[in-house]
């Protein structure tokens, strides 16, 4: 398709920023799908607020990626004119909303990682990443609080809410491993202290998630096999459908603004 960006051969910092931006945007878009469908008005606004936090993070990261790349791609070009194979988001965040429990479990698994991640990235010598991270950490802290409180009440609620929360956990658990992956794209950045070593965040994530699950009376899945590939552009079938909706306007009317 004409107008599609070519970012495959870009510098590691561009890839790194795109991975973070794509993950934030796709999760933000997923949450925005609840607008008009949330179980109660209060949650409609809560999920919308979180979606806007995430989309705001994505915008800042896309702008930075485009600036570092230096090929004139603005945030809209990066968000709306790349195809599924060029997206670098975690597989976890592109999984469908499912029922409310599935959305909450997805949010807990991601936010329990995002908060310590942004806290660590806020110490990066890269001033732009550090500034974006400092803002995002406060947002992620609330996202974790919000989803965590819900998970406790769903898990330790009625028989039905417990069953649904456990089913969501069992289904999404295999996507958690990708949170802690690190590859050649990041090695040099981590060595320079610019990027965060995600493996170092694993003990904190495991403790926080285990504490939440215990309070929610949910059983941690025993699954040892983990899904992988999102950060290299290998996605589940769900991402294409999401992009078809999200990118429709810019694909049909390139450059449209309002």
């Amino acid at each position, binding site marked *: 398709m004409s107008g599609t960006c070519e970012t495959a051969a870009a510098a590691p910092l561009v890839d790194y920023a795109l991975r973070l931006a794509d993950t934030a945007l796709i999760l933000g878009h997923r949450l925005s799908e609840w607008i008009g469908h949330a179980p109660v*008005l*209060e949650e409609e606004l809560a999920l919308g607020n979180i979606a806007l936090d995430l989309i705001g993070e994505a915008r800042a990261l896309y702008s930075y990626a485009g600036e570092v790349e230096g090929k004139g791609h603005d945030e809209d070009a990066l968000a709306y004119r790349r195809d599924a194979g060029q997206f670098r988001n975690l597989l976890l965040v592109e999984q469908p909303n499912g029922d409310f429990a599935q959305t909450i479990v997805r949010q807990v698994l991601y936010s329990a990682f995002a908060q310590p991640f942004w806290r660590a990235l806020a110490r990066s010598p890269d001033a732009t990443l550090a500034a974006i991270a400092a803002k995002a950490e406060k947002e992620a802290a*609330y996202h974790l609080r919000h989803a965590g409180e819900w998970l406790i009440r769903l898990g330790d609620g009625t028989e039905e809410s417990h069953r649904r929360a456990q089913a969501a956990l069992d289904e999404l658990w295999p996507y958690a491993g990708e949170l802690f992956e690190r590859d050649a794209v990041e090695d040099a950045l981590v060595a320079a202290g610019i990027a965060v070593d995600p493996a170092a965040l694993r003990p904190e994530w495991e403790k926080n998630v285990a504490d939440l699950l215990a309070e929610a009376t949910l059983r941690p899945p025993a699954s040892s096999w983990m899904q992988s590939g999102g950060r290299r552009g290998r996605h589940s079938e769900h991402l294409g459908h999401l992009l078809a909706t999200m990118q429709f306007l810019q694909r049909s009317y390139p450059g449209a603004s309002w």
Partner: protein
Amino acid sequence: MSEKSMPLWEVFIRARNGLAHRHVGSVHAADAAMALQAARDVYTRRGEGLSIWVVPSGAITASDPAEKDMMFEPTGSKIYRHPTFYKVPDDVGNM
């Protein structure tokens, strides 16, 4: 959503230091912690707040609108309770 599992809470927000908490509306929530979150998400989206109170609506004792004559009518004739009733002597200057 039932009133039993998701009762009503009244929301009070203090916008700045030195101001009182003001009633801004209500939310439905399962318990106090969730009510606080809901209040934050519904009522502080434009930087309105520094502090939030939530109170179970059932804990509020309200006056009966049918008794408004008895409750409020008697004050209507007591105009001397308003500062504007009094003439300030010129010597006092601006107050």
